């Protein structure tokens, strides 16, 4: 992995993190692992020369939760029974699916935990990387 790629990745991750309002992000991809922590006072740091594009996602608080994001562009369909904040998950389950050109792309909890945020509503359009749920493990 070259410096350029590392730098580009770090930037992309940092963008996602800032946008989602989270403090720490760890990504493992094969034998490459990334970890990013946000500086204490993000407000005081260098402003991006270009303002970030606004997304519709509400800003969750800065807890150390897992973010479950969409990896396609489509319309959110919440799986019944509909997931709500505070719900305890005792294992992996489908939380929703994102419909793309008639195809159902399932969104799973990838394990147990407590739902701490639901960022989307039934029928909402979402883009790639858009946070759908936060789960406290």
């Amino acid at each position: 992995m070259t410096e350029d790629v590392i730098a580009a990745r770090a930037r992309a991750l940092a963008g996602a993190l800032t946008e989602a309002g989270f403090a720490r992000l760890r990504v493992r991809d094969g034998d490459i692992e990334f970890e990013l922590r946000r500086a204490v006072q993000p407000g005081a740091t260098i402003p991006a020369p270009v303002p970030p594009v606004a997304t519709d996602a509400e800003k969750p608080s800065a807890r150390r939760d897992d973010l479950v994001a969409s990896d396609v562009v489509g319309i959110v369909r919440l799986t019944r029974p509909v997931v709500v904040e505070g719900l305890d998950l005792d294992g992996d389950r489908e939380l929703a699916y994102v419909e793309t050109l008639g195809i159902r792309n399932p969104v799973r909890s990838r394990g147990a935990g407590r739902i701490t945020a639901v960022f989307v509503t039934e029928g909402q359009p979402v883009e790639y990387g858009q946070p759908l749920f936060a789960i406290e493990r």
Partner: protein
Amino acid sequence: MFKKVLIANRGEIALRINRACHELGVATVAIFSDADRQSLHVRHADEAFCVGPGPVMRSYLNIPNIISAALISGCDAIHPGYGFLAENARFAEIAADHGLTFIGPKPAVINAMGDKATAKRLMREAGVPTTPGSDIVASVDEARAVSEKIGYPVLLKATAGGGGKGMRAVTGPQELPTAFATAQAEAEASFKDGRMYVEKLMPNPRHIEVQVLADEHGGVVHLGERDCSVQKPSHQKLIEEAPAPVLDPAIRARLHAIATTATRAVAYTNAGTLEFLVSGSDVYFMEMNTRIQVEHPVTELIYGVDLVKEQIRIAAGEALGFSQDDLHPHGHAIEVRVNAEDPQNNFAPAAGTLSTVVFPGGPGIRVDTHIYGGAIVPPFYDSMLAKIVAVGRTRESAILRMERALGETRIEGVKTTVDFCRELMNEPEFRAGGIGVGWLPAILARRAAAV
């Protein structure tokens, strides 16, 4: 006219299309990858959707996510730009299946022209002169038979080829087996299509192409020719101009006539470019590009026509608002591609953050770019950062203007082609005009030998 257009591209061409849409009063939807979140094309569009991570296969070539973004946002058309999905007939079909107008020719025409061997055959049938050569050759033996007939040197080419990939020059029969094997392997790797054909190799021909516009009501015009002979050893264009300098008026007229004839013959619609090799008084059709070209601004500047707006109008079913008699070129225009590449190191692409970005301005200068001070050049995409275009009353004034414009340009943070192209403006052979595609590689070889 369309209400909302999805722009299925990035970089300067996404901005270019956004400009045309906005000037037509059409709303725009941008798509972007994670790596392009801060890009100007995202900021300037009315809406924007992230369609995937940096690598193109998962974002700018991600057909389901792109079509889905168009549908969700209520678009009625898609402009593909150049590169990525611009010549992907399947994408055009899928768009149509979902009720979206693809701003370009019909899928069948994209398919026919995209297959180089088919395109040559169709053009031959329409009476267009093509390079002596073969249809698909199934084996080295077949290739050898054709090569002996047309005479060495020959060029082995992949029928699905592009950007110099799957192409090998062969000077004699002894080189043929290895060249065939490597070119075919490259074509299979790059295009998943290893079909090859053979062409006569011209000695240092000029690359001259003709811009056409064709509406869906039978209206066809050409907008003159462009000379794109300044090419890197990889066959990528670096400097383009319009009109072609020191071109015999009879050859010019012939190129224009062939272009409109061929356009009609294949029932082409929308904007397109016919590429020719010109060698002395010989003119050979090479290929047709079924999309807007990178170098379209040089034509726009001398004809005063906005080609991207015309593309959109044609796709919306409008008839051309002018005829051939209304089109008269004024002056001379030159375009330089500002790439994030190191000309001292085989044009190796570079990525990084741009600390300083100052573009030229003033009379006769057009800049098409998506970069700005502080912008990031991701490692995933084409290395072109900007196009600087100069127009003047004469070729000489355009060259002098380009020279001063490149002198004003400051891009820091990555290596670029700016200074290198500025030097080229002073090369006596370039100044004289009429160089062939072997000119730049020869200069580079000379410089490398001098070091």
